[in-house]
């Protein structure tokens, strides 16, 4: 191994290279300062690979189209390497790198994509509806096994996390409410507030957010990967509909699972609150339960549970659609999965707001 070296001989306009020339030899090139190299001398070269040859040539003629300098005293194998590189560094045909977009353009593109998602979702709902109509008369075509498997992962698998989250939220909410109510001696009303908040808002929204992050992302990643590995195409070629085989069981599974999970969340949240009210406000468990029985209206429970299937449908539709729109590369699975979660959260918040306004107007 000899270090690469090159120097410019002003008298003959010659660039004399010696040593091992490879990619790391670039710093050995002398600064030419616009002088023309007429001769490239390789007498002292011990090794030359394509990267080294390109570096020498590039120094000798910065523009690929310029005439070649005279090549002097190269050993045959080094000369062959130079010829190979000359042959493959054609000046033409290489376009400039694509124009990079500014922030404004990216933001605009993002907004357009959001609009595109809305239209895409409507289109998807239409196709799914047609598929459902076709399936309705043929119970044998329903994929009950797939539905069961999905229900297992979406519902049973989510129970521990839902209980954990809602229990803690119940604790926090009861604390906050309790510290305010104590000042007015209105301890018992904490129970009323807790029930209203947990059952009507917190449990449905939080459970929907959890399911969107957990099951929605999983559905997109799974269907997306199936798309990448051409499984979806295989399903279509076998004369089956991907919508019937993959999408409808998942939509139904979420539709069933989400209200059940909200109910589990309701119980966990109220239990968390019950624990705190006993510790902080001296409301014993029997007192708490008596108060619940007195003030709990069926409609409070039903409003919360009723929102769940709507959230479920949106999460499932968004997740399945994003899975099916994956293109054939690994990055697309990632971006679509992220997009599923973001779209689902936005949908949950918007739908919840619509429900809130609607219920007030309808006096529910």
């Amino acid at each position, binding site marked *: 191994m000899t270090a690469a070296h090159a120097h410019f001989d002003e008298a003959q306009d010659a660039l004399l290279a010696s040593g091992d020339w490879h*990619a*790391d030899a670039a710093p050995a090139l002398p600064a030419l300062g616009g002088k023309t190299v007429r001769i490239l001398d390789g007498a002292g070269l011990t090794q030359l690979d394509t990267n080294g040859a390109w570096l020498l040539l590039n120094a000798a003629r910065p523009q690929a189209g310029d005439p070649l300098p005279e090549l002097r005293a190269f050993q045959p194998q080094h000369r062959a390497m130079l010829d*190979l590189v000359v042959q*493959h*560094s054609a000046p033409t045909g290489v376009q400039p790198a694509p124009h990079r977009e500014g922030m404004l353009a990216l933001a605009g593109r993002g907004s357009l994509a959001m609009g595109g998602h809305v239209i895409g979702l409507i289109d998807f709902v239409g196709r799914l509806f047609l598929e459902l109509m076709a399936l309705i008369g043929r119970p044998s075509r329903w994929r009950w096994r797939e539905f069961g498997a999905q229900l297992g992962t979406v519902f049973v698998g989510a129970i521990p996390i839902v209980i954990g989250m809602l229990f803690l939220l119940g604790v926090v909410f009861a604390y906050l409410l309790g510290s305010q109510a104590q000042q007015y001696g209105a301890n018992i009303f904490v129970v009323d507030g807790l029930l209203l908040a947990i059952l009507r808002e917190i449990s449905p929204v939080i459970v929907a957010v959890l399911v969107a992050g957990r099951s929605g992302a999983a559905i997109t990643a799974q269907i997306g990967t199936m798309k990448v590995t051409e499984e979806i195409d295989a399903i279509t070629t076998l004369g089956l509909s991907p919508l019937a085989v993959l999408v409808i069981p998942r939509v139904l599974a979420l539709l069933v699972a989400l209200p059940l999970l909200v109910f589990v969340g309701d119980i966990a949240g109220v239990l968390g609150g019950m624990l705190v009210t006993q510790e902080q406000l001296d409301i014993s468990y029997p007192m708490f339960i008596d108060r619940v029985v007195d003030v709990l209206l069926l409609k409070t429970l039903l409003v919360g549970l009723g929102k769940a299937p709507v959230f479920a449908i949106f999460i499932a539709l968004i997740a399945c659609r994003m899975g099916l729109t994956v293109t054939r590369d690994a*990055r697309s699975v990632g971006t679509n999965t992220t997009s599923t979660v973001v779209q689902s959260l936005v949908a949950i918040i918007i739908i919840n707001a619509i429900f809130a306004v609607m219920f007030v107007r309808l006096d529910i």
Partner: protein
Amino acid sequence: MTDTVIDVRDVSIALGGHSIHRGLSLSIKRGEVIALIGGSGSGKSVLLREIIGLMKPDAGHIDLLGQSVWDCTPDQMDALRRRFGVLFQDGALFSSLSVEDNVATPLFEHTRLPHALCRQLARLKLDMAGLDPDAVHKQPSQLSGGMRKRVALARALALDPELLFLDEPTSGLDPISARAFDVLIRLLADSLGLTVFLVTHDLDTLFSIIDRVIVLSEGRVLGSGTVAELKHIDDPWLRDYFAARAPEGVVHGN
């Protein structure tokens, strides 16, 4: 220079309780173009993964370019990795990078050249691999199978390795592209003085560009030599293998 570049001695490995290699040995000299063949499940890909340091054998030694692959410091292994290039079966292009950046990545990571210069060198490699210059800014997902292989080859050549490993280079290509790819590999091997080690099922590759074939069977090297020499080995699998090439002019039906 006729030194040994790959030296595998008494390598054994068992996967999932199933013995794959039982005391396998082979050696390859500088400048050879070698093909490794063997039936499905004979451990060709496992051997390749052992040699390039992705899978550790249970026993035995593997020397690459005079250095042990499995008894060296991480720094030595990094230095060794610069000296060989690998073409994975499906190209294994980085899907988040453009074609040009895929090829420039080894240069970005292993040299201190400015990125603009790395990209120019990447274009040289892409041109040598026979890729259309229009494709340099495309994403890997926009390429056909043959183009992906060419980009992957250019990436394997980016650091001017002495040794090139190819895992089924012509699988998934149509016969025309496959033959063109064979010719390209031979041309590059000759002009760059590369040692090429390729795993293949493609009989046409064996007949056209290979100096020496190594046959793997039952965890050992069954034989090695030119195709003509191998035909003299009396082994049922090998006989069926060479007979599998459809004779020309066979008329189907009557």
